[in-house]
């Protein structure tokens, strides 16, 4: 059959087939084209470093890149064709993502840097930055969504760290500024001149008082070598020693004394206090030097020292004089004791030799006269004894102890009764007394004299009553000896405690008039006082004070 043999229908059919083949070929070509484009797009997707997913209109995942699978630790099988929110145990069901995909994107078709913070089941808490594009009619789809995911967790952390550091730095800087201001204020507030030097001993900072004191100007000072300051007036060997030798070893130095004749302010004595402060890596150092002018103080001290020396000399001179006087007094009482008694012994002795050897030649009056000599010698002897006692009390060294006064008084009473008044009926009442702090010998002497006086002056009473007691009054410890004896007229009270003062005639009561003077002296040596109350014929009470004792001590 030839071409001409074909029917019209056959030809039409042929054309139609041809047309179809062409159309098919075109279709294939188009699909190839589309495939090429698709591969191209996919290649791009694959090469992107950030995780990227392609979503369909229905929010099901069409594809994802390798980075996505790696980052979120998932496989293509469990990803492709899945609803995005269902991915990886619904870990992508994030409200903000829903908001982005369902609300924002349909309106805007593109969205950049949408930040999502979420705790992902597979990879933990992350901060993600999402970039989304909605593209119409691609890859045979009406609409696809490209979602690029950038993990900015680390970056955020770094940023946060940076921010924190920045803030801290700001705080540090503020603090440093404050400290620096504070330091500056201190420097300018301190009264003493203060100077700060760097490690080369050049002046860094100077207090106002330094300028005032040394009469220098800031422009001539700051930056200068300290030794060069003010026409080299600070070039002092002692200062060089301090700064060059001592400070490098010690870091701190107090009260280093420098005496120097300063050109601007004259001769001064300065007390230097230095601190070496290490800065930074320990390489730099700052030396703070506080300068105190002690010139005046030194002068005053010198004056005081001189005065003290003079005073001491005077005191030792007086002490020497005094000890000479004391020695003379001792020599005096020694010779009184020794030399005055010998003639008395001779007088009495030879008067008795007279009465023994010449008895037949003496008549009654002669013997009476010898008796008068004897009596007077005895009296003189007693006077000497009492005077010695008085002198002894004034110079005897005191040994102060706590004294059980009650026991002391009891022992004194017993001794006196046995020795002197054994033939008399005396009612003695010794009350319990608080302890005294005194010299035992002197305390015994005081009570002995007062009690023997009381015994003596009650001699004419039918019934002698003597009471001894003690109490605290107005913070003082008072002791008393009371008797119902002869008493005395209070108008003579002032004579009572003087040496050789007697208020009674010798024919009434014997005595030398020294006993109460001894009492007074002994009490005064303890810083106490003594007084009396009396009425003629009604008795007398003698009071005295002694320092308070605490414990009782064995008498």
């Amino acid at each position: 059959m030839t071409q001409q043999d074909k029917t019209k229908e056959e030809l039409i059919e042929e054309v139609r087939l041809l047309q179809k083949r062409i159309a098919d070929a075109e279709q294939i070509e188009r699909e190839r084209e589309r495939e090429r484009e698709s591969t191209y797009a996919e290649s791009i997707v694959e090469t992107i470093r950030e995780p990227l997913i392609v979503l369909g209109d229905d929010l099901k995942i069409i594809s994802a890149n390798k980075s996505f699978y790696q980052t979120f630790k998932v496989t293509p099988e469990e990803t492709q064709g899945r609803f995005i929110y269902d991915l990886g145990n619904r870990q992508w069901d994030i409200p903000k993502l829903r908001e982005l995909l369902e609300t924002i994107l349909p309106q805007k078709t593109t969205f950049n840097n949408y930040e999502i913070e979420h705790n992902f089941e597979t990879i933990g808490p992350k901060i993600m930055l999402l970039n989304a594009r909605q593209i119409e009619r691609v890859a045979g789809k009406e609409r696809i969504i490209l979602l690029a995911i950038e993990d900015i967790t680390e970056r955020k952390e770094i940023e946060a760290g940076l921010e924190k550091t920045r803030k801290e730095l700001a705080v540090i800087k503020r603090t440093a500024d404050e400290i620096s201001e504070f330091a500056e204020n201190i420097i300018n507030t301190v009264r003493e001149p203060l100077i700060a030097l760097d490690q080369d001993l050049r002046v860094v900072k100077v207090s106002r008082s330094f300028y005032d004191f040394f009469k220098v100007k800031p422009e001539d000072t700051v930056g200068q070598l300290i030794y060069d300051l003010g026409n080299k007036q600070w070039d002092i060997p002692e200062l060089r020693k301090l700064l060059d030798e001592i400070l490098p070893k010690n870091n701190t130095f107090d009260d280093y004394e420098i005496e120097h004749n300063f050109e601007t302010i004259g001769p001064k004595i300065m007390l230097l206090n230095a601190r070496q402060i290490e800065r930074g890596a320990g390489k730099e150092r700052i030396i703070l030097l506080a300068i105190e002018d002690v010139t005046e103080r030194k002068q005053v001290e010198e004056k005081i020292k001189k005065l003290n020396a003079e005073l001491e000399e005077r005191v030792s001179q007086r002490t020497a004089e005094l000890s000479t006087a004391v020695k003379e007094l001792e020599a005096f009482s020694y010779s009184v004791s020794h030399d005055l008694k010998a003639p008395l012994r001779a007088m009495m002795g030879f008067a008795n030799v007279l009465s023994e050897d010449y008895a037949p030649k003496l008549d009654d009056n002669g013997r009476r006269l010898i008796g008068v000599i004897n009596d007077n010698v005895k009296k003189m002897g007693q006077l000497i004894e009492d005077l010695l006692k008085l002198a002894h009390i004034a110079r005897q060294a005191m040994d102060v102890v706590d004294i059980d006064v009650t026991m002391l008084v009891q022992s004194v009473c017993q001794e006196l009764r046995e020795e002197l008044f054994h033939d008399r009926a005396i009612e003695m009442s010794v009350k319990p007394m608080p302890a005294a702090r005194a010299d035992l010998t002197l305390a015994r002497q005081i009570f002995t004299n007062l009690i023997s006086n009381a015994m003596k002056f009650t001699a004419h009473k039918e019934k002698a009553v003597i009471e001894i007691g003690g109490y605290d009054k107005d913070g003082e410890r008072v002791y008393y000896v009371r008797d119902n004896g002869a008493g005395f007229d209070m108008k003579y009270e002032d004579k009572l405690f003087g040496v050789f003062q007697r208020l009674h005639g010798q024919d009434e009561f014997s005595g030398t008039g020294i006993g109460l003077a001894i009492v007074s002296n002994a009490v005064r040596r303890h810083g106490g006082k003594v007084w009396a109350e009396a009425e003629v014929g009604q008795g007398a009470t003698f009071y005295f004070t002694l320092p308070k004792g605490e414990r009782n001590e064995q008498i």
Partner: protein
Amino acid sequence: MNKYEQIEILLVEDNPNDVELTLRAFKKSNLDNKVYVVTDGAQALDFIFCTGAYTDRNIKSPPKVILLDLKLPKVDGKEVLRRVKLDERTKVIPVVIMTSSQEESDVVESYHLGANSYIVKPIDFEKFGHMIAGLGMYWIFINKPPIV
């Protein structure tokens, strides 16, 4: 046999009145012939150590007691006491300090130097007499001295 043989008491006393009264008191006890009197410390030392005027005395027949006043011319009583008590030959001789001083310091010092007794001479004639008699009686008749 020499003139010091019978001496048993050495009285060192510079006051002639005290010497007379003392000897008078010893006489009453019949001891006056046993007493030898020197009137200063230097003589006392010469007597005791058999020197000076007393070279003819025998140091091996010491007195039974020395009655020594403290206040003496030339060498004082304490120095005499010290020398006697420091010397091996004489330290055993009893020394009785017989003085007017009742200074506590004198008493203490005398005993420290080795005094065997310390007596304060009383002013009262009667007491003085009794004291001397007692002294003589005690040191000559009662006390037993060591054999030198």
